């Protein structure tokens, strides 16, 4: 059985998840590192540049304050000399000195000062190379300057001498102090400009790295996509190549019952009709199969999609394997029968049934070959069987049987050809044909010609069905010539074999000697008894005393042979008990049938067939008569035992239960015996004792 098919993932996807995404993870990581680095540096430098701007601004203010200090000092001295109000210039002087002093010290050690906007601002200590020298030199000039100014300003006025000294000091050092504050401003501006340059460089570098990273990612993915596209394209080409060249019709069937997007080129050729992707599969089948097969196919497909059942355990239920369809012949000369096989398998994707894979093959050649082989095998078997059975029969007897049976079949043929007026005549014909065929069956069985016996049995069953009908119409008779023909053909085949064997035998050992008629009959009867006994699981021995048989005329021999066959058959089937029953009845396990022919007076013979079985049982015969529907209970009850026993010679009588087999239960046999003996003007007597024996005695003239 085919296993469920799993769709295989493509090769790159089969690798681990990490290696598949490594490049993108590294790229994104680098991108984040670059961006974060730039951001941090940017933030740091921006803060420094901001601080630099404050410092540059305050250094510029120091330049201005140094000049205002001198100016307010001179204004204060001027007001003091002219005895004017000194308060306004003095207040400005104090404020200017305080601001200059605090700012210069903040440049020296770092600290908080009042900013240009009046709010507090932080200043870092000036660094060497960035104004440190100017601050140190500035402090050296400023500290004595401030001391002189502080000395000049008293709590309740001004010290004129100290004020004069301060003005003198200011005049002497003002330009130097201005230059130093200017140097400080220039140095700070340079530092700020350098940092701004650094910031630009970092930003440009960071963005460049990010761009390079982006470009690498882009190229990597374009390359991967290209590779992937090439894989997909190669796989697609392979699929197309397979679908174009494969002999089977292949397609995927979706849960909606539609044919998938790809199908093999062979499919329309195999189905002998146009098929395209998206077609309804069941609509396609509708033209090819019966309504019930279509329904079953739909159920089968649903069952496979449902997923509950085992796919391996339901393959036999696929109604589309070995599908017989009628199609236009490829040569365009009418219609022809083709055999298609639809294999349907599940396709799993991620453990779920996604589709069914349908594989359609044209198995016509295979089926035809199989049928031819079967037929050849059967023919060879039956011919060998026929030959073997023919070889086991004495040639003279076989020839006699074939000759006689052929004549009988011709007679039946004549009977069947007659135009019958109505059901009554049909009924009589059927009865007559039935007896003849039954007799042929009996003889064939006695000779061990099983194939003839089986054909006769089939014929007999058809006749039996007709016999049970109340009324037989002309049409009902139509099947009889078919059976008759079969028997004719079989006999002619047999005759051909016999002729060939006779020729062979003649060539090798000369003409055969006819055997003793009595011995031959004894052998046939034992063979018949053995065969029936085997089926019935009984043990039977035929004790034949037929030494006088050859002395009888041919006509009598023929009748007695038929009679012996029927009586021995009945004895084994009805008379002899199963071994267990016999043991319980204190009898030997082997039943005994005595067939004897003795002279009895002048020109007279007595033919005896006696078995030591259960005997004729009147009660069973009564039951059988009622069961046959031809007698009512009160009729049968009124009959005495002797009359009841004699009813076994009526046509259609049988005590065999259940279905008829080929050895008994047909209700023909004893009526044939009676009829044939009447033809010889022979007398028939029956003696029986229940549980002990049944004996038929026939008196006939030689």
């Amino acid at each position, binding site marked *: 059985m085919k296993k469920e098919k799993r769709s295989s993932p493509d090769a790159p996807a089969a690798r681990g998840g990490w290696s598949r995404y490594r490049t993108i993870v590294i790229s994104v990581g680098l991108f984040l590192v670059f961006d974060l680095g730039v951001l941090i540096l940017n933030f740091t430098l921006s803060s420094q540049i901001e601080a630099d701007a404050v410092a540059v601004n305050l250094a510029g203010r120091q330049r201005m304050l140094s000049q205002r200090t001198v100016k307010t000092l001179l204004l204060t001295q001027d007001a003091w000399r002219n005895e004017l109000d000194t308060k306004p210039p003095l207040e400005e002087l104090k404020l200017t000195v305080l601001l200059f002093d605090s700012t210069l010290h903040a440049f020296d050690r770092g600290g908080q000062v009042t900013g240009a906007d009046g709010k507090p601002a932080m200043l870092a200590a000036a660094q060497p190379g960035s104004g440190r020298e100017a601050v140190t030199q500035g402090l050296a000039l400023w500290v004595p300057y401030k001391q002189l100014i502080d000395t000049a300003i008293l709590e309740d006025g001004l010290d004129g001498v100290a004020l004069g000294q301060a003005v003198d000091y200011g005049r002497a050092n003002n330009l130097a102090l201005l230059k130093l504050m200017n140097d400080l401003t220039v140095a700070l501006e340079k530092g700020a400009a350098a940092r701004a340059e650094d910031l630009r460089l970092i930003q440009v570098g960071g963005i460049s790295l990010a761009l390079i990273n982006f470009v690498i990612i882009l190229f990597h993915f374009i390359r991967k996509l290209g590779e992937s596209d090439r894989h997909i394209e190669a796989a697609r080409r392979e699929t197309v190549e397979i679908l174009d060249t494969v002999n089977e019709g292949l397609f995927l069937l979706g849960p909606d019952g539609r044919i998938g997007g790809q199908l093999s080129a062979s499919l329309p050729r195999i189905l002998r009709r146009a098929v395209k992707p998206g077609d309804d599969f069941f609509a396609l089948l509708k033209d090819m199969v019966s309504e019930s097969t279509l329904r079953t196919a739909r159920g089968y497909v649903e069952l496979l999609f449902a997923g509950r059942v*085992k796919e*391996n355990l339901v393959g*036999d239920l696929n109604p589309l394997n070995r599908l017989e369809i009628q199609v236009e012949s490829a040569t365009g000369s009418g219609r022809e029968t083709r055999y298609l096989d639809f294999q349907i398998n599940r396709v799993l994707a991620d453990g779920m049934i996604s589709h069914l894979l349908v594989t359609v093959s044209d198995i016509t050649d295979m089926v035809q070959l199989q049928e031819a082989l079967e037929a050849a095998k059967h023919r060879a078997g039956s011919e060998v069987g026929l030959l073997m059975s023919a070889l086991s029969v004495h040639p003279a007897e076989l020839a006699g049987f074939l000759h006689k049976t052929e004549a009988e079949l011709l007679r039946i043929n004549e009977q069947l050809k007659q135009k019958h007026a109505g059901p009554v005549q049909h009924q009589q014909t059927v009865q007559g044909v039935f007896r003849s065929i039954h007799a042929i069956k009996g003889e064939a069985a006695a000779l061990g010609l099983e194939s003839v016996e089986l054909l006769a049995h089939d014929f007999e069953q058809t006749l039996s069905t007709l016999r049970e009908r109340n009324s037989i119409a002309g049409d009902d008779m139509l099947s009889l010539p078919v059976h008759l023909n079969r028997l004719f053909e079989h006999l002619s085949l047999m005759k051909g074999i016999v002729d060939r064997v006779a020729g062979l035998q003649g060539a090798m050992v000369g003409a055969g000697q006819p055997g003793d008629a009595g011995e031959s009959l004894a052998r046939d009867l034992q063979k018949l008894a053995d065969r029936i006994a085997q089926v019935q699981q009984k043990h039977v021995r035929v004790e034949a005393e037929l030494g006088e048989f050859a002395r009888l005329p041919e006509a009598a021999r023929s009748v007695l042979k038929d009679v012996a066959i029927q009586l021995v058959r009945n004895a084994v089937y009805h008379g002899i008990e199963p071994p267990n029953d016999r043991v319980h009845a204190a009898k030997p396990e082997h039943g005994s049938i005595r067939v004897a022919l003795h002279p009895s007076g002048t020109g007279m013979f007595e033919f005896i067939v006696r078995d030591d079985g259960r005997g004729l049982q009147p009660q069973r015969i009564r039951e059988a008569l009622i069961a046959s529907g031809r007698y009512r209970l009160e009729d049968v009850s009124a009959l005495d035992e002797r009359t009841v026993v004699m009813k076994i010679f009526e046509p259609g009588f049988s005590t065999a239960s259940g279905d008829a087999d080929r050895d008994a239960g047909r209700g023909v046999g004893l009526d044939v015996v009676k009829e044939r003996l009447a033809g010889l003007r022979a007398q028939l007597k029956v003696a029986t004792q229940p549980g002990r024996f049944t004996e038929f005695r026939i008196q006939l003239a030689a």
Partner: protein
Amino acid sequence: MSGAIVKNDMKLMIVDDSNIIRGRIARVVETGKIPDVSVVGMARNGSEALRLCQERQPDLVTMDLTMPEMDGIVCTEGLVQIKPDVRILVVSALRDKATALEALQKGALGFVCKPFTDDQLAGALNELMERQT
């Protein structure tokens, strides 16, 4: 495995009106081709099977389809109601695929066609128990 031998851990009920087939299936089980399975009951028709199922609680069932009194399809439906996890294998002659399909739609899980060989039946029962065969 600790080495302990687990025997007869799956219970099989055989449902078939033919005593020959019932005997045949039981013999296949006895040959050891289907390990760890024991026959816990045999039923001649659907109604007998339903009674027996309640009493013996089988894990596996082999189910004939054509039987007197109650056929295999009605019986399959009934068994699944009584014991939803029961695994039913339809064992029937393949005259009518539609009927067998109906039994599978009612809850049976697999199908084996009569006549069958010992190996076919053993393989199907093992497959039904999801064993490698």
